[in-house]
Protein backbone atom coordinates (compact mmCIF):
# COMPACT_ATOMS: atom_id res chain seq x y z
CA UNK A 1 0.00 0.00 0.00
CA UNK A 2 2.56 2.53 1.11
CA UNK A 3 4.38 4.18 -1.73
CA UNK A 4 1.56 3.76 -4.20
CA UNK A 5 0.30 7.31 -3.85
CA UNK A 6 -0.03 9.25 -7.07
CA UNK A 7 2.01 12.42 -6.66
CA UNK A 8 1.33 14.99 -9.35
CA UNK A 9 1.91 18.62 -10.37
CA UNK A 10 2.54 20.96 -7.40
CA UNK A 11 3.03 18.08 -4.97
CA UNK A 12 5.50 16.50 -7.35
CA UNK A 13 7.43 19.75 -7.82
CA UNK A 14 7.64 20.19 -4.04
CA UNK A 15 8.73 16.60 -3.53
CA UNK A 16 11.42 16.82 -6.21
CA UNK A 17 12.94 19.93 -4.67
CA UNK A 18 12.80 18.38 -1.20
CA UNK A 19 14.45 15.22 -2.52
CA UNK A 20 17.23 17.26 -4.14
CA UNK A 21 17.82 19.02 -0.78
CA UNK A 22 18.03 15.60 0.89
CA UNK A 23 20.67 14.12 -1.38
CA UNK A 24 24.02 13.12 0.08
CA UNK A 25 25.87 13.29 -3.23
CA UNK A 26 28.28 10.42 -2.99
CA UNK A 27 31.49 9.23 -4.53
CA UNK A 28 33.19 6.30 -2.81
CA UNK A 29 35.57 4.84 -5.35
CA UNK A 30 39.17 3.74 -5.24
CA UNK A 31 39.56 5.90 -8.34
CA UNK A 32 38.45 9.15 -6.60
CA UNK A 33 40.77 12.09 -7.13
CA UNK A 34 40.72 15.73 -5.89
CA UNK A 35 39.54 16.76 -9.36
CA UNK A 36 36.63 14.35 -9.27
CA UNK A 37 35.63 15.50 -5.76
CA UNK A 38 35.89 19.20 -6.65
CA UNK A 39 33.65 18.61 -9.68
CA UNK A 40 31.11 16.85 -7.50
CA UNK A 41 31.17 19.75 -5.02
CA UNK A 42 30.45 22.21 -7.82
CA UNK A 43 27.51 20.02 -8.83
CA UNK A 44 26.34 19.96 -5.19
CA UNK A 45 26.25 23.76 -5.05
CA UNK A 46 24.41 24.23 -8.33
CA UNK A 47 22.89 20.95 -9.50
CA UNK A 48 21.29 22.61 -12.54
CA UNK A 49 23.49 25.43 -13.80
CA UNK A 50 20.75 26.46 -16.21
CA UNK A 51 18.22 27.05 -13.43
CA UNK A 52 19.07 29.24 -10.40
CA UNK A 53 15.86 28.21 -8.63
CA UNK A 54 17.18 24.66 -8.24
CA UNK A 55 18.24 24.09 -4.60
CA UNK A 56 21.61 22.67 -3.52
CA UNK A 57 22.00 19.18 -2.08
CA UNK A 58 22.40 18.37 1.62
CA UNK A 59 25.92 16.98 1.72
CA UNK A 60 28.83 15.52 -0.15
CA UNK A 61 29.85 12.02 0.99
CA UNK A 62 33.46 10.97 0.41
CA UNK A 63 36.32 8.89 1.80
CA UNK A 64 38.42 10.48 4.61
CA UNK A 65 41.34 11.22 2.29
CA UNK A 66 39.09 13.45 0.18
CA UNK A 67 37.61 15.42 3.11
CA UNK A 68 40.05 18.38 2.94
CA UNK A 69 39.29 18.84 -0.76
CA UNK A 70 35.54 18.69 -0.22
CA UNK A 71 35.60 21.03 2.82
CA UNK A 72 37.52 23.63 0.88
CA UNK A 73 35.32 23.36 -2.18
CA UNK A 74 32.13 23.64 -0.14
CA UNK A 75 33.25 26.52 2.12
CA UNK A 76 30.46 29.01 2.72
CA UNK A 77 27.82 26.95 0.92
CA UNK A 78 26.12 25.45 3.97
CA UNK A 79 26.53 22.02 2.36
CA UNK A 80 27.78 19.42 4.80
CA UNK A 81 30.89 17.31 4.31
CA UNK A 82 30.17 13.71 5.22
CA UNK A 83 32.97 11.18 5.47
CA UNK A 84 32.73 7.46 5.71
CA UNK A 85 34.97 6.07 8.43
CA UNK A 86 35.65 3.03 10.65
CA UNK A 87 37.30 0.95 7.90
CA UNK A 88 34.40 1.45 5.51
CA UNK A 89 32.88 -0.63 3.97
CA UNK A 90 33.78 -3.88 5.74
CA UNK A 91 34.54 -2.49 9.20
CA UNK A 92 37.06 -5.28 9.60
CA UNK A 93 39.76 -3.37 11.48
CA UNK A 94 40.81 -3.08 15.14
CA UNK A 95 38.78 -0.58 17.18
CA UNK A 96 41.74 1.79 17.62
CA UNK A 97 42.12 2.00 13.84
CA UNK A 98 38.40 2.75 13.48
CA UNK A 99 38.59 5.48 16.10
CA UNK A 100 41.72 6.98 14.53
CA UNK A 101 39.99 6.87 11.12
CA UNK A 102 37.05 8.77 12.60
CA UNK A 103 39.13 11.38 14.42
CA UNK A 104 41.24 12.03 11.31
CA UNK A 105 38.12 12.64 9.20
CA UNK A 106 36.68 15.06 11.78
CA UNK A 107 40.01 16.83 12.14
CA UNK A 108 40.16 17.24 8.35
CA UNK A 109 36.83 19.06 8.43
CA UNK A 110 34.07 16.46 8.17
CA UNK A 111 30.95 17.47 10.10
CA UNK A 112 29.16 14.20 9.46
CA UNK A 113 30.61 10.71 9.94
CA UNK A 114 29.09 7.63 8.26
CA UNK A 115 30.32 4.64 10.27
CA UNK A 116 29.69 0.94 9.65
CA UNK A 117 28.55 -1.33 12.47
CA UNK A 118 30.46 -4.48 13.29
CA UNK A 119 28.30 -7.01 11.41
CA UNK A 120 30.58 -9.85 12.43
CA UNK A 121 29.88 -9.16 16.08
CA UNK A 122 26.18 -8.55 15.40
CA UNK A 123 25.62 -11.80 13.54
CA UNK A 124 27.48 -13.74 16.29
CA UNK A 125 25.11 -12.25 18.84
CA UNK A 126 27.71 -10.00 20.51
CA UNK A 127 25.32 -7.04 20.59
CA UNK A 128 27.03 -5.34 23.50
CA UNK A 129 30.26 -5.19 21.51
CA UNK A 130 28.36 -3.58 18.62
CA UNK A 131 26.80 -1.06 21.03
CA UNK A 132 30.09 -0.19 22.72
CA UNK A 133 31.86 0.30 19.43
CA UNK A 134 29.19 2.74 18.21
CA UNK A 135 29.33 4.60 21.53
CA UNK A 136 33.11 4.88 21.25
CA UNK A 137 32.91 6.19 17.70
CA UNK A 138 30.23 8.68 18.76
CA UNK A 139 32.65 9.99 21.35
CA UNK A 140 35.43 10.19 18.78
CA UNK A 141 33.14 12.24 16.51
CA UNK A 142 33.04 15.13 18.94
CA UNK A 143 30.79 17.78 17.40
CA UNK A 144 30.27 15.89 14.13
CA UNK A 145 26.98 14.09 13.51
CA UNK A 146 27.14 10.32 13.45
CA UNK A 147 25.31 8.19 10.88
CA UNK A 148 25.27 4.49 11.69
CA UNK A 149 25.33 2.21 8.64
CA UNK A 150 23.56 -1.07 9.46
CA UNK A 151 24.40 -2.74 6.11
CA UNK A 152 20.93 -4.25 6.04
CA UNK A 153 21.79 -6.42 3.04
CA UNK A 154 24.07 -8.45 5.29
CA UNK A 155 21.67 -8.53 8.25
CA UNK A 156 19.17 -10.56 6.18
CA UNK A 157 16.08 -10.34 8.38
CA UNK A 158 13.76 -7.53 9.39
CA UNK A 159 14.17 -8.54 13.04
CA UNK A 160 17.89 -7.98 12.71
CA UNK A 161 17.31 -4.60 11.07
CA UNK A 162 15.01 -3.54 13.89
CA UNK A 163 17.47 -4.72 16.54
CA UNK A 164 20.44 -3.04 14.86
CA UNK A 165 18.41 0.18 14.51
CA UNK A 166 17.75 0.24 18.22
CA UNK A 167 21.38 -0.52 19.11
CA UNK A 168 22.49 2.32 16.84
CA UNK A 169 20.06 4.79 18.40
CA UNK A 170 20.69 3.73 21.98
CA UNK A 171 24.45 4.02 21.45
CA UNK A 172 24.05 7.65 20.41
CA UNK A 173 23.75 7.63 16.61
CA UNK A 174 22.21 10.76 15.09
CA UNK A 175 21.12 8.90 11.94
CA UNK A 176 20.63 5.28 11.02
CA UNK A 177 21.56 4.40 7.45
CA UNK A 178 20.71 1.30 5.44
CA UNK A 179 23.78 0.46 3.39
CA UNK A 180 27.29 1.10 2.22
CA UNK A 181 26.30 0.64 -1.42
CA UNK A 182 29.10 -1.93 -1.71
CA UNK A 183 27.07 -5.12 -1.26
CA UNK A 184 24.53 -6.43 -3.78
CA UNK A 185 21.41 -5.68 -1.72
CA UNK A 186 21.20 -2.00 -0.78
CA UNK A 187 18.28 0.17 0.30
CA UNK A 188 14.79 -1.27 -0.11
CA UNK A 189 11.42 0.18 0.81
CA UNK A 190 10.51 -2.53 3.38
CA UNK A 191 13.82 -2.17 5.21
CA UNK A 192 13.42 1.60 5.28
CA UNK A 193 9.90 1.12 6.63
CA UNK A 194 11.29 -0.93 9.52
CA UNK A 195 13.85 1.75 10.27
CA UNK A 196 11.29 4.57 10.09
CA UNK A 197 9.09 2.70 12.55
CA UNK A 198 12.11 2.33 14.82
CA UNK A 199 12.96 6.06 14.86
CA UNK A 200 9.29 6.89 15.40
CA UNK A 201 9.04 4.54 18.38
CA UNK A 202 12.42 5.65 19.73
CA UNK A 203 11.32 9.27 19.85
CA UNK A 204 8.04 8.30 21.50
CA UNK A 205 10.02 6.49 24.16
CA UNK A 206 12.99 8.81 24.70
CA UNK A 207 12.03 12.14 23.19
CA UNK A 208 15.16 12.12 21.02
CA UNK A 209 14.74 12.29 17.24
CA UNK A 210 17.04 10.23 15.03
CA UNK A 211 17.33 10.60 11.24
CA UNK A 212 17.14 7.93 8.52
CA UNK A 213 19.25 7.57 5.38
CA UNK A 214 18.50 4.96 2.75
CA UNK A 215 21.52 4.60 0.50
CA UNK A 216 22.35 2.63 -2.63
CA UNK A 217 20.08 1.60 -5.48
CA UNK A 218 17.77 4.65 -5.43
CA UNK A 219 18.14 5.93 -8.98
CA UNK A 220 14.84 7.41 -10.13
CA UNK A 221 12.54 10.20 -9.09
CA UNK A 222 9.74 7.67 -8.86
CA UNK A 223 11.73 5.70 -6.28
CA UNK A 224 12.64 8.83 -4.30
CA UNK A 225 9.05 9.95 -4.10
CA UNK A 226 7.98 6.54 -2.86
CA UNK A 227 10.45 6.95 0.01
CA UNK A 228 9.13 10.42 0.82
CA UNK A 229 5.57 9.09 0.95
CA UNK A 230 6.82 6.36 3.26
CA UNK A 231 8.43 8.96 5.54
CA UNK A 232 5.29 11.06 5.53
CA UNK A 233 2.96 8.23 6.38
CA UNK A 234 5.21 6.36 8.86
CA UNK A 235 7.36 8.78 10.83
CA UNK A 236 5.51 11.95 9.92
CA UNK A 237 6.14 15.55 8.91
CA UNK A 238 8.99 16.10 11.34
CA UNK A 239 11.19 13.83 9.29
CA UNK A 240 10.44 15.49 5.94
CA UNK A 241 13.50 17.65 6.28
CA UNK A 242 17.13 17.28 5.17
CA UNK A 243 18.16 17.34 8.84
CA UNK A 244 16.21 14.14 9.44
CA UNK A 245 16.05 12.26 6.14
CA UNK A 246 18.71 11.83 3.48
CA UNK A 247 19.23 9.90 0.25
CA UNK A 248 22.68 8.41 -0.24
CA UNK A 249 22.97 8.49 -4.05
CA UNK A 250 24.91 9.56 -7.10
CA UNK A 251 22.81 8.96 -10.21
CA UNK A 252 19.49 9.88 -8.51
CA UNK A 253 20.28 13.59 -8.68
CA UNK A 254 20.25 13.78 -12.49
CA UNK A 255 16.95 11.94 -12.73
CA UNK A 256 15.46 14.40 -10.23
CA UNK A 257 16.78 17.24 -12.38
CA UNK A 258 15.35 15.70 -15.57
CA UNK A 259 11.92 15.31 -13.97
CA UNK A 260 12.13 18.85 -12.61
CA UNK A 261 12.79 20.10 -16.13
CA UNK A 262 9.97 18.01 -17.55
CA UNK A 263 7.57 19.75 -15.13
CA UNK A 264 8.82 23.18 -16.20
CA UNK A 265 9.07 22.68 -19.97
CA UNK A 266 6.33 20.12 -20.61
CA UNK A 267 8.58 17.88 -22.74
CA UNK A 268 10.69 14.89 -21.78
CA UNK A 269 14.27 15.85 -21.04
CA UNK A 270 17.45 14.14 -22.16
CA UNK A 271 20.60 13.33 -20.18
CA UNK A 272 22.78 15.44 -22.49
CA UNK A 273 21.25 18.55 -20.93
CA UNK A 274 22.49 17.76 -17.39
CA UNK A 275 26.01 17.72 -16.12
CA UNK A 276 27.78 14.46 -15.38
CA UNK A 277 30.18 14.95 -12.50
Amino acid at each position, binding site marked *: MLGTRSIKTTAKAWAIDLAIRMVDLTTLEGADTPGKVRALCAKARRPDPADPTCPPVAAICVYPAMVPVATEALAGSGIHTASVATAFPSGQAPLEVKLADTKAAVAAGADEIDMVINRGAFLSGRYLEVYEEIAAVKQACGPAHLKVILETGELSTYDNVRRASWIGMLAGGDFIKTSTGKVPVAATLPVTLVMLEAVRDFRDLTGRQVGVKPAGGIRTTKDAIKYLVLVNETAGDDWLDPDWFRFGASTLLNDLLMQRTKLTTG*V*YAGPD*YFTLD
Partner: protein
Amino acid sequence: MSDARVAVRKTYKLFIGGKFPRSESGRSYIAQDANVALASRKDVRDAVVAARAAVKGWSGATAYNRGQILYRVAEMLEGRRDQFIGLGLPAAEVDEAIDRWVWYAGWSDKISQVYGGANPVAGPYFNLSSPEPTGVVGLVTPPSFLGLVSVIAPAIVTGNTVIALAAHDAPLAAVTLAEVLATSDLPGGVVNVLTGDPAETAPWLAAHMDVNAIDLAGVTDQALATSLEEAAAGNLKRVIRPPASTPNWSDDPGLARMTAFLETKTVWHPKGI
Protein backbone atom coordinates in the same frame (compact mmCIF):
# COMPACT_ATOMS: atom_id res chain seq x y z
CA MET B 1 -21.19 -31.73 -29.85
CA SER B 2 -19.35 -29.72 -32.43
CA ASP B 3 -15.98 -30.81 -33.78
CA ALA B 4 -14.86 -27.20 -34.24
CA ARG B 5 -11.94 -26.43 -32.00
CA VAL B 6 -12.17 -23.22 -29.97
CA ALA B 7 -9.23 -21.09 -31.02
CA VAL B 8 -6.77 -19.51 -28.62
CA ARG B 9 -6.65 -15.84 -29.51
CA LYS B 10 -3.62 -13.64 -29.36
CA THR B 11 -3.27 -10.57 -27.16
CA TYR B 12 -1.65 -7.76 -29.13
CA LYS B 13 0.70 -5.90 -26.83
CA LEU B 14 3.39 -3.25 -27.04
CA PHE B 15 7.06 -4.11 -27.65
CA ILE B 16 9.43 -2.20 -25.36
CA GLY B 17 12.98 -3.14 -24.46
CA GLY B 18 12.55 -6.66 -25.85
CA LYS B 19 9.47 -7.34 -23.72
CA PHE B 20 5.77 -7.30 -24.53
CA PRO B 21 4.01 -5.16 -21.90
CA ARG B 22 0.49 -3.81 -22.04
CA SER B 23 0.17 -0.04 -22.05
CA GLU B 24 1.03 1.41 -18.63
CA SER B 25 -2.23 3.29 -19.04
CA GLY B 26 -4.15 0.00 -19.08
CA ARG B 27 -5.99 1.13 -22.19
CA SER B 28 -6.77 -0.73 -25.38
CA TYR B 29 -8.79 -0.09 -28.52
CA ILE B 30 -10.33 -2.19 -31.24
CA ALA B 31 -8.46 -2.35 -34.52
CA GLN B 32 -8.69 -5.02 -37.22
CA ASP B 33 -11.20 -6.83 -34.99
CA ALA B 34 -8.78 -7.23 -32.12
CA ASN B 35 -8.06 -5.48 -28.86
CA VAL B 36 -4.81 -3.61 -29.27
CA ALA B 37 -2.84 -1.71 -26.63
CA LEU B 38 -3.44 2.05 -26.70
CA ALA B 39 -0.04 3.47 -25.83
CA SER B 40 0.28 6.58 -23.65
CA ARG B 41 2.91 9.29 -23.38
CA LYS B 42 4.49 7.29 -20.56
CA ASP B 43 4.86 4.32 -22.86
CA VAL B 44 6.68 6.69 -25.22
CA ARG B 45 8.90 7.73 -22.33
CA ASP B 46 9.65 4.12 -21.39
CA ALA B 47 10.34 3.19 -25.00
CA VAL B 48 12.80 6.07 -25.36
CA VAL B 49 14.62 4.92 -22.23
CA ALA B 50 14.81 1.38 -23.66
CA ALA B 51 15.96 2.63 -27.05
CA ARG B 52 18.63 4.86 -25.50
CA ALA B 53 19.92 2.01 -23.35
CA ALA B 54 20.26 -0.17 -26.45
CA VAL B 55 22.28 2.37 -28.48
CA LYS B 56 25.68 1.54 -27.02
CA GLY B 57 25.52 -2.19 -27.64
CA TRP B 58 23.84 -2.00 -31.04
CA SER B 59 25.93 0.80 -32.52
CA GLY B 60 29.01 -0.84 -31.05
CA ALA B 61 28.26 -4.22 -32.59
CA THR B 62 30.27 -4.96 -35.72
CA ALA B 63 28.59 -4.17 -39.01
CA TYR B 64 28.95 -7.87 -39.84
CA ASN B 65 27.03 -8.80 -36.72
CA ARG B 66 24.25 -6.30 -37.44
CA GLY B 67 24.02 -7.61 -41.00
CA GLN B 68 23.72 -11.18 -39.77
CA ILE B 69 20.93 -10.19 -37.41
CA LEU B 70 18.95 -8.34 -40.07
CA TYR B 71 19.32 -11.36 -42.33
CA ARG B 72 18.07 -13.49 -39.46
CA VAL B 73 14.98 -11.26 -39.35
CA ALA B 74 14.39 -12.15 -43.00
CA GLU B 75 14.77 -15.84 -42.20
CA MET B 76 12.30 -15.64 -39.32
CA LEU B 77 9.86 -13.56 -41.34
CA GLU B 78 9.98 -16.11 -44.16
CA GLY B 79 9.04 -18.74 -41.61
CA ARG B 80 6.03 -16.72 -40.51
CA ARG B 81 4.99 -15.69 -44.01
CA ASP B 82 1.60 -17.36 -43.70
CA GLN B 83 0.86 -15.60 -40.45
CA PHE B 84 1.18 -12.22 -42.17
CA ILE B 85 -0.87 -13.36 -45.13
CA GLY B 86 -3.44 -14.44 -42.55
CA LEU B 87 -3.67 -10.83 -41.40
CA GLY B 88 -4.99 -9.99 -44.86
CA LEU B 89 -1.74 -8.86 -46.44
CA PRO B 90 -1.12 -9.75 -50.10
CA ALA B 91 1.49 -12.51 -50.43
CA ALA B 92 3.49 -10.36 -52.82
CA GLU B 93 3.77 -7.60 -50.22
CA VAL B 94 4.96 -10.03 -47.55
CA ASP B 95 7.55 -11.46 -49.94
CA GLU B 96 8.70 -7.98 -50.82
CA ALA B 97 9.03 -7.16 -47.13
CA ILE B 98 11.18 -10.26 -46.56
CA ASP B 99 13.42 -9.27 -49.46
CA ARG B 100 13.61 -5.74 -48.09
CA TRP B 101 15.20 -7.07 -44.89
CA VAL B 102 17.70 -8.98 -47.04
CA TRP B 103 18.46 -5.84 -49.05
CA TYR B 104 19.13 -3.79 -45.94
CA ALA B 105 21.06 -6.61 -44.20
CA GLY B 106 23.67 -6.28 -46.91
CA TRP B 107 24.04 -2.56 -46.36
CA SER B 108 25.37 -2.86 -42.82
CA ASP B 109 28.98 -3.31 -43.90
CA LYS B 110 28.73 -1.41 -47.19
CA ILE B 111 27.12 1.93 -46.42
CA SER B 112 30.35 3.41 -45.10
CA GLN B 113 32.11 2.19 -48.26
CA VAL B 114 29.81 4.22 -50.48
CA TYR B 115 29.06 7.06 -48.04
CA GLY B 116 32.49 7.66 -46.50
CA GLY B 117 36.05 7.85 -47.68
CA ALA B 118 39.46 9.41 -47.63
CA ASN B 119 39.67 13.18 -48.21
CA PRO B 120 42.76 14.45 -50.04
CA VAL B 121 43.32 17.54 -47.88
CA ALA B 122 46.09 19.94 -48.94
CA GLY B 123 48.55 19.10 -46.20
CA PRO B 124 50.36 16.26 -44.47
CA TYR B 125 47.27 14.85 -42.83
CA PHE B 126 45.40 11.61 -42.84
CA ASN B 127 41.75 12.58 -43.21
CA LEU B 128 38.94 10.07 -43.26
CA SER B 129 35.19 10.56 -43.11
CA SER B 130 32.97 7.77 -41.83
CA PRO B 131 29.27 7.65 -41.17
CA GLU B 132 27.98 6.91 -37.68
CA PRO B 133 24.46 6.36 -36.40
CA THR B 134 22.72 9.42 -35.00
CA GLY B 135 21.27 7.55 -31.99
CA VAL B 136 17.60 7.17 -31.06
CA VAL B 137 15.13 7.59 -33.91
CA GLY B 138 11.36 8.00 -33.68
CA LEU B 139 9.33 6.53 -36.54
CA VAL B 140 5.74 7.41 -37.34
CA THR B 141 5.15 4.44 -39.61
CA PRO B 142 2.80 4.12 -42.58
CA PRO B 143 -0.12 1.66 -42.60
CA SER B 144 1.53 -0.45 -45.34
CA PHE B 145 3.43 -3.45 -43.97
CA LEU B 146 6.12 -3.06 -46.61
CA GLY B 147 6.26 0.61 -45.65
CA LEU B 148 6.68 -0.32 -41.99
CA VAL B 149 9.64 -2.57 -42.80
CA SER B 150 10.99 0.05 -45.18
CA VAL B 151 11.26 2.65 -42.42
CA ILE B 152 12.45 0.38 -39.59
CA ALA B 153 15.19 -1.53 -41.42
CA PRO B 154 17.15 1.44 -42.82
CA ALA B 155 17.12 3.18 -39.46
CA ILE B 156 18.50 0.24 -37.49
CA VAL B 157 20.92 -1.30 -40.00
CA THR B 158 23.38 1.52 -39.44
CA GLY B 159 23.26 1.18 -35.65
CA ASN B 160 20.39 3.46 -34.60
CA THR B 161 17.68 2.27 -32.24
CA VAL B 162 14.03 3.13 -32.89
CA ILE B 163 10.62 3.73 -31.42
CA ALA B 164 8.10 2.83 -34.11
CA LEU B 165 4.57 4.17 -33.74
CA ALA B 166 2.32 1.74 -35.60
CA ALA B 167 -0.45 3.11 -37.79
CA HIS B 168 -3.67 3.50 -35.80
CA ASP B 169 -5.84 1.35 -38.04
CA ALA B 170 -3.26 -1.30 -39.06
CA PRO B 171 -1.39 -2.29 -35.92
CA LEU B 172 -1.57 -6.10 -36.09
CA ALA B 173 1.23 -6.59 -38.61
CA ALA B 174 3.42 -4.25 -36.57
CA VAL B 175 2.92 -6.27 -33.39
CA THR B 176 3.45 -9.52 -35.28
CA LEU B 177 6.62 -8.08 -36.78
CA ALA B 178 7.74 -7.27 -33.23
CA GLU B 179 7.30 -10.96 -32.43
CA VAL B 180 9.56 -11.79 -35.37
CA LEU B 181 12.14 -9.27 -34.18
CA ALA B 182 12.02 -10.68 -30.66
CA THR B 183 13.10 -14.07 -31.99
CA SER B 184 15.81 -12.85 -34.38
CA ASP B 185 18.74 -12.24 -31.98
CA LEU B 186 18.00 -8.51 -32.19
CA PRO B 187 18.96 -7.05 -28.79
CA GLY B 188 16.04 -5.78 -26.72
CA GLY B 189 15.38 -2.07 -27.14
CA VAL B 190 16.79 -1.75 -30.66
CA VAL B 191 13.24 -1.74 -32.03
CA ASN B 192 10.34 -0.69 -29.83
CA VAL B 193 6.81 -0.79 -31.21
CA LEU B 194 3.93 1.24 -29.82
CA THR B 195 0.38 0.75 -31.04
CA GLY B 196 -2.35 3.28 -30.46
CA ASP B 197 -3.00 6.73 -31.81
CA PRO B 198 0.09 8.42 -33.24
CA ALA B 199 -1.76 11.72 -33.09
CA GLU B 200 -1.61 11.32 -29.30
CA THR B 201 1.89 9.82 -28.92
CA ALA B 202 3.88 11.35 -31.79
CA PRO B 203 3.97 14.86 -30.23
CA TRP B 204 5.65 13.43 -27.13
CA LEU B 205 8.16 11.61 -29.28
CA ALA B 206 8.82 14.65 -31.47
CA ALA B 207 9.40 16.88 -28.43
CA HIS B 208 11.45 14.37 -26.43
CA MET B 209 14.89 15.83 -25.76
CA ASP B 210 16.54 12.41 -25.73
CA VAL B 211 15.45 11.47 -29.26
CA ASN B 212 17.87 12.38 -32.05
CA ALA B 213 15.75 12.05 -35.18
CA ILE B 214 12.25 11.40 -36.42
CA ASP B 215 10.76 9.93 -39.57
CA LEU B 216 7.26 11.24 -40.34
CA ALA B 217 6.60 8.68 -43.11
CA GLY B 218 3.16 7.77 -41.78
CA VAL B 219 1.83 11.28 -41.09
CA THR B 220 -0.86 12.27 -43.55
CA ASP B 221 -2.29 15.27 -41.71
CA GLN B 222 -0.24 18.27 -42.88
CA ALA B 223 -1.00 20.32 -39.78
CA LEU B 224 0.19 17.49 -37.52
CA ALA B 225 3.32 17.07 -39.64
CA THR B 226 4.13 20.76 -39.27
CA SER B 227 3.63 20.75 -35.53
CA LEU B 228 5.74 17.61 -35.14
CA GLU B 229 8.52 19.19 -37.18
CA GLU B 230 8.29 22.31 -34.99
CA ALA B 231 8.49 20.21 -31.83
CA ALA B 232 11.44 18.29 -33.30
CA ALA B 233 13.28 21.60 -33.70
CA GLY B 234 13.50 21.79 -29.88
CA ASN B 235 16.70 19.75 -29.95
CA LEU B 236 17.34 19.92 -33.69
CA LYS B 237 16.19 16.42 -34.49
CA ARG B 238 16.97 15.16 -37.95
CA VAL B 239 13.58 14.99 -39.68
CA ILE B 240 12.33 13.02 -42.65
CA ARG B 241 9.19 14.81 -43.76
CA PRO B 242 6.10 12.90 -44.85
CA PRO B 243 6.04 11.88 -48.52
CA ALA B 244 4.45 14.42 -50.83
CA SER B 245 2.11 11.78 -52.22
CA THR B 246 1.24 8.22 -51.25
CA PRO B 247 4.48 6.38 -51.81
CA ASN B 248 4.87 3.12 -53.67
CA TRP B 249 6.91 1.22 -51.12
CA SER B 250 7.93 -1.44 -53.61
CA ASP B 251 10.06 1.10 -55.50
CA ASP B 252 13.85 0.89 -55.15
CA PRO B 253 14.39 2.34 -51.69
CA GLY B 254 17.74 3.95 -52.47
CA LEU B 255 19.98 5.20 -49.69
CA ALA B 256 18.07 8.24 -48.44
CA ARG B 257 16.42 6.61 -45.41
CA MET B 258 19.80 5.35 -44.22
CA THR B 259 21.78 8.52 -44.82
CA ALA B 260 19.14 10.73 -43.18
CA PHE B 261 19.96 9.15 -39.84
CA LEU B 262 23.74 9.08 -40.15
CA GLU B 263 26.25 11.59 -38.85
CA THR B 264 29.53 11.97 -40.69
CA LYS B 265 32.64 11.95 -38.54
CA THR B 266 35.89 13.19 -40.03
CA VAL B 267 39.15 12.23 -38.35
CA TRP B 268 42.35 14.21 -38.89
CA HIS B 269 45.78 12.95 -37.95
CA PRO B 270 49.17 14.40 -38.88
CA LYS B 271 51.68 12.42 -40.89
CA GLY B 272 55.35 12.75 -40.00
CA ILE B 273 58.32 11.03 -38.46
